[in-house]
């Protein structure tokens, strides 16, 4: 029996994803930051006023610009391997803000310029899926170290079960294609039709992200799953290929999470002694009182 056509990824211009060039535009950054605040960070209860906020995978800093304009943060830190935050690239003159804003180029797990326990809030959107699972663990360990006890991390990540879970939607006009065909076959097809390599995205599903958050030492306060809605006919074919996976895991497009760096017994020495009703800086007198 002939299999029905699977070509239904982009039914019209309205759903075309933005190009890399469009994502560098100031206007795109403004609307993206607003949308992220409305849909993710606001509902998750992010507190920015008076806080040190780190944007993991900040791109050119559009979220940081939004926070600087809408709130009164103490400090904004952006990290990204790409590092395209020169004012001439984005049009945002962040240098005029002096010490309020700083950027670090590279993988957060390999950046050592940010003091431990100095960050109140870490934001991370659509970044983890591009890391290897080992890279995720290393970055989460770094996040935990950089956060003060009680500090929070709010994130959204794409899952492999997303209809674009392997970022092939600009190359192959079939949603969920990475769940249907193995990576070597897709790599060969893309090389033949586009003369380029396929992008790397990891294969984690929603529950494995949650186990990874817990294992890294975070307390999980909230998790929300955003489900796929595209191409129900192709989703049905995926369901036939994976009848052993419940739809509630198989059909997750993205995971959002609010994580807390717990306060532990090991944090007590850093609090220092209480003198005259105030907590003194530094470690307690080893001789005690």
């Amino acid at each position, binding site marked *: 029996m002939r299999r029905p056509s699977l070509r239904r990824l982009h039914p019209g211009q309205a759903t075309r994803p933005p190009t890399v060039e469009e994502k560098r535009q100031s206007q795109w950054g403004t609307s993206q930051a607003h949308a992220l605040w409305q849909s993710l960070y606001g509902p998750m209860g992010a507190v920015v006023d008076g806080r040190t906020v780190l944007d993991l995978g900040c791109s050119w800093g559009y979220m940081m610009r939004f926070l600087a304009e809408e709130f009164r943060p103490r400090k904004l830190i952006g990290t990204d391997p790409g590092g395209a935050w020169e004012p001439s690239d984005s049009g945002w003159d962040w240098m005029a803000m002096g010490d309020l804003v700083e950027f670090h180029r590279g993988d957060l797990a390999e950046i050592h310029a940010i003091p431990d326990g100095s960050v109140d809030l870490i934001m991370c959107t659509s970044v983890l899926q591009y890391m290897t699972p080992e890279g995720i663990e290393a970055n989460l360990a770094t996040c935990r170290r950089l956060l003060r006890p009680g500090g929070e991390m709010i994130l959204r990540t794409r899952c492999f079960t997303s209809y674009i879970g392997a970022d092939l939607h600009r190359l192959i006009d079939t949603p969920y294609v990475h769940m249907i065909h193995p990576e*070597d076959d897709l790599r060969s097809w893309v090389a033949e039709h586009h003369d380029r390599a396929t992008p790397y995205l990891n294969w984690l*599903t929603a*529950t*494995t992200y949650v*186990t990874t958050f817990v*294992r890294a030492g975070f307390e*999980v306060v909230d998790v929300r799953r955003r489900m796929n809605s595209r191409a129900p006919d192709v989703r049905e074919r995926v369901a036939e290929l*994976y009848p052993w996976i419940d739809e509630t*895991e198989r059909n997750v497009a993205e995971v959002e999470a609010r994580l807390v760096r717990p306060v532990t017994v090991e944090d007590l020495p850093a609090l220092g002694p209480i003198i005259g009703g105030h907590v003194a800086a530094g470690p307690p007198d080893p001789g005690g009182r």
Partner: protein
Amino acid sequence: MNEDRKLAPEWGADTALELWNGVLDHFDVEWNRARVLDVGASWGYLLRHLLDQRGIASAVGVDPRAPWRRLGDQSLIGDLTLHEGEVDTVEELQDARFDVIVSTGTLMLLTPTRQLETLHWMRDHLEPGGHCVIATRTYLSHYGADQQQHLSSPLPHLVFGAPAIDALLARRGAAPLRYMNPSCAATYLMLFRRAGFDIVDVRRTSNIALEAARERFPERLVFFNDQELETSELHVHLRRPAGPADLSGLAVPE
């Protein structure tokens, strides 16, 4: 369990029979006259069973720890071919082809990227149409982080992070928990397909600590998917596709 006890012939024979009855025999695999590789073979007890009782043609095993060197009775090895190392680093295996590859209790000890590399290798070294049977713990298992010998609480690794558990173990004078891959069953299935296998059949075994964990930590487990939380082990029958993939339905976006 005392590691030396695992070197006893009786333990090996009993464990192999349990694996046959509990895992291998549930899948439609042609064992007779098959060339078999065991990835993570320990001292070869499963291969011994398959050779002596299931009619396989040849038995090759690979294990990085090479415990067979500590066997009291080296005659147990006999006609098994055992290699020390990882599958993709043992020179003698690189041109080999197998009809069946098995791997039990091994994948969960590998980091995610090593899992993918190992699975690619396994697929490439199967004959077209060849079978692969895998039994692996998931991280959500009641033994998910191998914590049961130190901690009696149900599923503590899903409630407390590794830093807290390792700090507790340190205070008790115990070593940190050994590495366990954080994958749930669904992630493993995505991984197998990504590596190039057709998934033929899947069985999930139950998490015997879940009820007690839900009673003690109800608010801490709600963020895990129920089916994944209920799965302690994953037993999977995979096959290398017999022929090239049909990609004729794919197209470049307009």
